[in-house]
């Protein structure tokens, strides 16, 4: 019972739903209640685990979940995950999303509708959000991918216009090159793929799978439209692409 020593967590007994044991008399009720309690405990632990893991915005692997939380309760994996997701949604307004169904990688996204007013992000996070959206908009409006030679390149040139110089230390973002090419890529917001057999080496900038989940082409187009004071339909092909993309989800 060493697990009992750990705090019951945010889920705890308050939020876990009462599962009816059912009329299964073959398993003595004492044992069954004990394992049900353990499952409840696992759900709470998983909620905490996911919240902490999400701090760095690095996608969470199923293998890590199994190793650290689920352990011997592998059979109840899908139940535990489903219930953890429910708690995240109902208590925190977040959602557990499987970003990669083949490799079973999860991320947490915000479930609450876009609200006007204060958002509960830290200052650094907000600033990065700004830069990120700007980059994603650029990529989308340019036809979903920007091919470039790294230094300099279309994206870099664009950032220069915004006084963001990837070669220089930025007062807000610091090492911008590292932020864009390493952090955003690790977090799966951006995907940078090198084109083989090119010299100087060419790279393709695209939206990463997290960007696909956390925003949409329609949202991004609306953002661009708002910034430029135009109607989204001004960019006909981008608009139709955004509409099509929304229809698919």
């Amino acid at each position, binding site marked *: 019972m060493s697990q009992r020593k750990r705090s019951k967590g945010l889920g705890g007994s308050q939020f876990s739903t009462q599962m009816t044991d059912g009329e299964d008399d073959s398993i003595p009720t004492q044992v069954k209640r004990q394992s049900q309690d353990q499952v409840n405990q696992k759900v709470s632990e998983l909620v905490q685990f996911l919240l902490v893991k999400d701090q760095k*915005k690095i996608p969470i692997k199923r293998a890590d979940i199994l190793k650290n939380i689920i352990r011997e309760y592998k059979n109840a994996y899908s139940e535990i995950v489903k219930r953890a997701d429910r708690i995240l949604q109902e208590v925190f307004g977040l959602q557990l999303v499987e970003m990669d169904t083949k490799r079973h990688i999860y991320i947490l996204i915000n479930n609450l509708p876009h609200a006007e007013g204060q958002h509960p992000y830290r200052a650094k996070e907000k600033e990065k959000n700004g830069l990120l959206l700007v980059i994603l908009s650029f990529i989308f409006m340019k036809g979903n991918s920007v091919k470039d030679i790294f230094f300099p390149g279309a994206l870099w040139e664009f950032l220069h216009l915004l*006084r963001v110089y990837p070669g220089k230390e930025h007062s*807000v973002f610091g090492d911008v090159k590292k932020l864009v090419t390493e952090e955003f890529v690790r977090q799966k917001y951006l995907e940078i793929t090198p084109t083989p057999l090119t010299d100087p080496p060419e790279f393709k900038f695209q939206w990463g799978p997290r960007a696909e989940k956390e925003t949409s082409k329609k949202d991004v187009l609306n953002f661009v439209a708002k*910034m430029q004071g135009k109607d989204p339909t001004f*960019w006909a092909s981008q608009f139709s692409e955004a509409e099509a993309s929304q229809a698919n989800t």
Partner: protein
Amino acid sequence: MSHTGSSGGSSPDVGRRRRSRRPHAQEDTVEAEAAGERLRQLNIDEGDDREHNRMIRNQYRELISAVQQNRESILSSKSNRLTEALEEANRIFDEVRQAREAALDAQFLVIASNIGKEKANELHSEMSAFDSTAFAEDLLTFMGINRTEVEEDDDSEDVPGGFLPSHAWQKMGEEASKYLRRAPTFHYMMGSFKSEPPVRKQRIERQKKASRGKAERAMPAQLKEMEQSHLEATEKEVERILRILQTHFENDPNTSISFFDFVVDPNSFARTVENMFHVSFLVRDGLAEIKLDEDELPIIEPVKPREGEEESRAAARNQVVISLDQSQWKEIIETFQITEAMIPPLYQTEEELET
């Protein structure tokens, strides 16, 4: 081109292919040799002018740099800037004498063709022209750029004057948050503990277990000894008290001994209680009797072994609980004027020895 005779290979097809390749190869090598010869001639005659070559390389590098830096404007504008760049490259190429410079030309060509391809893409796809420069301007405006003042250190000539306020990106981020479904990160409000304790706990537990183990191992041996000695001590003490009682009674068989006189030790309350404890064993075992005399005060006398066992069993066995506290004990000492203990103590404490 002449076909050589059949070479009698294993499969006729392969042989034919081999045959048809050979003439082409021969042609290529002839051409290559001619080109190499030309190049060698160039090198010998004019190629060694390093100053000239360096200049050519610089020109190429400038051209490449210019094209790359202005890539966006070349793409987006409807100007002929790309064509102009190509023509410039052609002009420079006329002066090229060595492979090194030619390589730079090739590099430029790659860049130019990439841009050309992109331009073609933009025409081909019905993507409505996205003017990124205008977009950037609009973003800056939103962030609250102050265009009246000019930056002091302005190394980049492309960027127009004006400077961004410090909260520019905060404002951008605030707006951006509306379009992103990013989960706010979870943090403890008061911070969290550092994870040191677990390690220490283990060590402490191990130590405790180790010491406990030893203690336990030692205990059984000791306990046995103690218990035995304890039992013996009690038995011995009881026997001793019995002997004292019998001695007193033998000396004076007709005088009954007051219970209190017998058990009370005026010098030690603790010993008094012990004496009562030991006397109770005697009574239990039927070796002594406590009765009430005419004054209703308890007296004690040893029991003579009766002839019939039945009679001893028949003797009324009453259970009595005697409680005594220190004030009562003192009262008894005063009342009965007990000056010394009838049951001499086995050992004397330091205090008593002093007094």
